[in-house]
């Protein structure tokens, strides 16, 4: 398994090819084939590695490729340590499962994209596939990274690709705004993540996941009685990072806006893979989190509340992609709820099944948007079932799966989470169950508004204008096979993926839980005693949730197919609530008024301060110097030099008198001499 570092590298090479050569010289088809080929190779390598992992008794395979940050001494909480991070990757059950999800679903989405992105100009297609491959490169580094810092490389890298792909149509202000918002909100989370990483090093003297887990296992669990210790702080900081990447309260606001990106991007990045990175990271640090039960409580609560809040917003959205976006936020909330109650394998299981059905739903919505000539508003759809039967059938499977109807995949993973939550905290279970009802409702509202009932869209374009690319639009139509085949493949996955986790209560063996278990523990760690199985409770919960889901589906059918006026009447009756929900609780407005405006006004204020006060002091010093120079100048000119001139003036003025003496006439001189002689003689005679 020494080759696992090649798995990220192959899409990396694909990205480089498309980015450096493709943008200038690849045809659309070549660009797509290069990127898809890279993903195919990555998928084959991943499958090969996974099979080897299954056949091996050793569950951890760490491959160190090269030095990255060489050792530098640094003090830690336990004396001098060595700060060192190699480029090292680990294959274990958790990363193995993620590898298959990322490369498998990634491959299908790449294939779909060849059809979807075909309208774009040639260079744009290569740019798109370059970003998409680059994303997979970073995502695979994130998944395989052996240490916090290598994971962080992938973590930030997927953020960059998300930014680039959300803003793919960069001429659209809303798209580039959304990309920027995604990056900056994620950076707020990263602030917590990186500080958590620093604290991990300071506490344990290493950043390697396994070594940290082994060291943490030896430490006491920081229960309420022990108090909020250093492990709790680490977990809280890491979780702040997770709320950013996985769109949880309070940092979820970027994900709905991210729907500005092309739909395959929404499917790959903002549903199946990148947004689950936060869940993955928490699962990766299961041992740490189990030592921080206080933080686990916070994680569970945030997850549950996010799940509920996003689901309520999803109830009233009319943009088909936004419904799915809020649904993603909500489902991610489920996953955090699972990790928060200690059901890490249930979280990872739901992550996997969700990747199938949510990617399916997004790609299906992309197919619909494609068919409707870029229309995303479900109020202008309806009755599309006849026009695009394959898209309808596959999306219906996705909707049934997410609604939790057995035996589709969503049923198994969601019920595992709800069951485990029930055992831990009934209130959180209540929130989860209500969310499940809402999920079934808004998903079937989406199906009904889009595919059933009357067609409410625009009439086909007879003359051949209206399309931004100048093609005639002949009305809704089924998408090309490049797009529908991935839908079929994902639908198969959405049906079957759940069978790896059939619970014991239904006669299964919960294979996936046993498989993943080694990733969530360390050898020798005190095992929680095998819980007694409460099959009766589990059966009752399953029956209840299926019943609720079916009821919600029925209600959606009644309101949106049989009696469409019912939905409007309901909206009118609950006008206040309806307005609150359509405006998404005004959270964006709140953030805008506080954080965005706050930082902008402090920026402008500081700028004025910089010019007025700091630079004012500098210019003031300069001014003072010049002013004193001027005063000196005045003094010098009028006082100092004045005195000099005064002496001169006196001399000059005085000399006028004497000048009269100098007449040049002999008689005057003779007369003066005579007077002088007379005076002297007189003085001499009289004075003596």
């Amino acid at each position, binding site marked *: 398994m020494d080759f696992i570092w090649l798995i990220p590298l192959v899409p990396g090479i694909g990205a480089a090819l498309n980015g450096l050569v493709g943008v200038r010289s690849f045809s659309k088809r070549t660009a797509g084939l290069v990127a898809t080929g890279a993903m195919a190779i990555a998928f084959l390598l991943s499958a090969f590695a996974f099979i080897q992992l299954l056949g091996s008794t050793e569950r951890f395979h760490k491959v160190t490729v090269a030095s*990255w*940050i060489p050792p530098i001494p640094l003090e830690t909480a336990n004396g001098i340590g*060595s700060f060192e991070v190699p480029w090292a990757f680990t294959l274990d059950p958790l990363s193995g499962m993620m590898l298959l999800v990322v490369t498998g679903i990634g491959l299908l989405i790449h294939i779909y994209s060849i059809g979807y992105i075909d309208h774009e100009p040639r260079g744009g297609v290569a740019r798109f596939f370059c970003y998409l491959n680059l994303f997979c490169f970073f995502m695979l580094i994130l998944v395989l990274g052996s240490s916090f810092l290598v994971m962080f490389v992938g973590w*930030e890298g997927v953020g960059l690709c998300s930014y680039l792909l959300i803003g793919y149509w*960069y001429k659209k202000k809303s798209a580039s705004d959304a990309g920027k918002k995604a990056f900056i909100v994620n950076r707020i989370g990263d602030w917590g993540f990186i500080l958590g990483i620093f*604290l991990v090093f300071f506490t344990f*003297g290493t950043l390697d996941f396994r070594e940290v887990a082994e*060291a943490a296992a030896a430490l006491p669990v920081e229960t309420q009685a022990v108090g909020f210790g250093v492990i709790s702080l680490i977990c809280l900081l890491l979780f702040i990072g997770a709320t950013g990447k996985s769109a949880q309260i309070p940092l979820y606001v970027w994900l709905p806006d991210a729907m500005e990106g092309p739909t395959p991007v929404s499917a790959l990045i903002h549903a199946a893979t990148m947004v689950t990175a936060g869940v993955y990271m928490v699962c990766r640090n299961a041992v740490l989190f189990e030592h921080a039960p206080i933080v686990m409580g916070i994680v569970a609560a945030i997850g549950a509340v996010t799940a509920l809040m996003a689901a309520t917003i999803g109830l009233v959205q009319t943009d088909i992609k936004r419904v799915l976006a809020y649904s993603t936020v909500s489902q991610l909330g489920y996953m955090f709820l699972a990790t928060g109650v200690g059901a890490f394998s249930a979280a990872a299981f739901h992550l996997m099944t969700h990747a199938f059905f949510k990617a399916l739903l997004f790609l299906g919505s992309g197919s619909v948007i494609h068919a409707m000539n870029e229309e995303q508003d479900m109020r202008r759809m309806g009755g599309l079932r006849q026009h695009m039967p394959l898209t309808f059938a596959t999306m219906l499977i996705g909707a049934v799966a997410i609604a939790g109807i057995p035996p589709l995949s969503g049923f198994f993973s969601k019920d595992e989470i709800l069951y485990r939550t029930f055992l831990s905290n009934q209130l959180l279970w209540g929130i989860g169950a209500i969310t499940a009802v809402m999920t079934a409702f808004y998903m079937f509202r989406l199906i009904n508004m889009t595919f059933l009932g009357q067609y409410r869209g625009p009439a086909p374009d007879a003359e051949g204008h209206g399309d931004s690319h100048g093609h005639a639009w002949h009305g809704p139509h089924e998408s090309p096979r490049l797009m529908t085949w991935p839908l079929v493949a994902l639908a198969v996955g959405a049906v079957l993926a759940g069978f790896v986790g059939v619970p014991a209560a239904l006669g299964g063996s919960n294979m996936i839980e046993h498989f993943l278990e080694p990733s969530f523990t360390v050898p020798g760690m005190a095992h929680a005693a095998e819980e007694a199985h409460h099959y009766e409770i589990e059966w009752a919960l399953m029956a209840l949730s299926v019943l609720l889901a079916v009821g919600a589906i029925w209600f959606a059918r009644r309101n949106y197919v049989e009696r469409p006026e019912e939905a409007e009447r309901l909206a009118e009756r609950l006008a206040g609530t309806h307005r609150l929900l359509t405006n998404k609780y005004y959270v964006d407005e709140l953030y805008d008024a506080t954080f965005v405006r706050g930082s902008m006004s402090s920026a402008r204020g500081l700028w004025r301060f910089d010019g007025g006060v*700091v630079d004012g002091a500098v210019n003031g010093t300069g001014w003072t110097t010049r002013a004193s120079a001027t005063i000196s100048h005045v003094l010098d000119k009028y006082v100092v030099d004045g005195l000099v001139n005064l002496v001169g003036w006196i001399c000059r003025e005085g000399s006028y008198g004497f000048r009269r003496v100098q007449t040049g006439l002999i008689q005057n001189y003779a007369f003066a001499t005579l007077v002088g002689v007379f005076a002297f003689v007189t003085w001499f005679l009289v004075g003596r």
Partner: protein
Amino acid sequence: MSNAAEFPLLSLILFTPLVGVLVLLFIDRANAHLIRLVSNVTVGIGFLVSLPLWFMYDTQDAGWQFVERHDWIPSIGADYFLGVDGFSVLLILLTTLMGVIAVLSSWTAITMRVKEYYVFLLALQTGMLGAFMSLDFLLFFLFWEVMLVPMYFLIGIWGSDNRLYSAIKFFLFTLVGSVVMLLGILAVYFYHHSVTGIYTFDVTQFHKLGIPYDLQWWIFLAFFLGFAVKVPMFPFHTWLPDAHTDAPTAGSVILAAVLLKMGTYGFIRFSLPILPEATVAFVPVVAALSIVGIVYGALVAMAQKDWKRLVAYSSVSHMGMVMLGMFALTPVGITGSIVQQLNHGISTGALFLIVGIVYERRHTRAIAEYGGLSKVMPVYATIFLVMTMSSIGLPTLNGFIGEVLILQGIFVVSKMWAFVAASGIVLGAAYMLWLYQRTMFGNVDNPKNESLPDLSMREIWTFVPLLILAVWIGLYPKPFLDRLETSVDNVMVRVNSDYTPRLAAVEDQGSPTLALDAAAQADGGPVRGGAR
């Protein structure tokens, strides 16, 4: 401790630009093409002759290398004394490389007084290189002052709008700082005489001095004024946005990439090792000013409407990070600080080139004048994107390595400082991405931008070395970090008497440190998992 060089490599590096100046003096001023050619060849040779430093620098030798020493002013004990360690090797290479880029970037931008321009630019190279090589404090001061003059003229003659104000401000600000610094130098000089009876400006001797704490305190303050202005640290930074904004592109590039490093280099070469106790005492002050600089620079950058001024304020923020890492006084922090100096040179140098390219085409720096440039200048937009990411510390690019080392280095000293300083990564992303959006994304609304030509081959080549370095340092920084190891340890030993240098631990068989290490190694790695 000193290894005298057989071949005067440092002198060769130092005087190559001056030879170019001499040649230029004999060329007719009307022959602008030849002048450009000679200047480019000169800096090219200048870079090539500096390359042996990279390969021949011995990472296992903790002493000064490539040393040259001759009498200069024997009556006062001043020598022509050159030598390098890891810090100076990297900064010298940065200087010679940025010299190539700055000269190459001026090819079409400068059309007036071409000869004088290149003479000043080349003379500036010698001034900066001299400061990084001098091991004689007076010689250092000479170069320190000398480089003011060409920069003053570069801004004052070839600058824009407010160039005279900015040039004078730059000159006076630095001069005031350096006069005070000179007093500090003299204090060390006379103290050394009072202890040893020898008059010398030998820095290597000063590094061994144990100056009394009270005197150290005052000398530190004097040095601080000189160096902090140059870095620049808040609140001595206001000359920087003016100087940057009005300087010609090459001037801004050199100013950001190299001249600012004079200040940080001054701290690491003189303040820390000569005044260790005062350094420790000043840590809270310097750290506080650095952190204020990080946040303040970033926020003020966010408010800018002038593209170049925005980049200038981002420099204030980044240099705050550099200072913070250095004054963590941990090996990781100091290493990060030096790496971040290179990174800042690479990414901010590139960002100034990027502004310069559109300024040359449009003669305006107002952000509002641009928009949608991705469409008309795709190659340019791509390079700008990479450099934006480098500047905001995206992993796999250089900026991340520096930031992580600095923040980890400061984290073990004070969690609170790290918490506040790390907010710089959020603000940095905000102002840079907003800039990128406003200039590159959207539609081309301004008809004047519709037919802007994309980068020429010459312009692309000014970026290629910077792109390579950004990726290299991001993915495999080991060669750079290895060259810093002994130099960082030399400083660490001075500021922390308990510190055991890494190299000594290997040589000194049987020392307790080694025993501990060996035990840890047997246990599966260097001291880790201490929790057990």
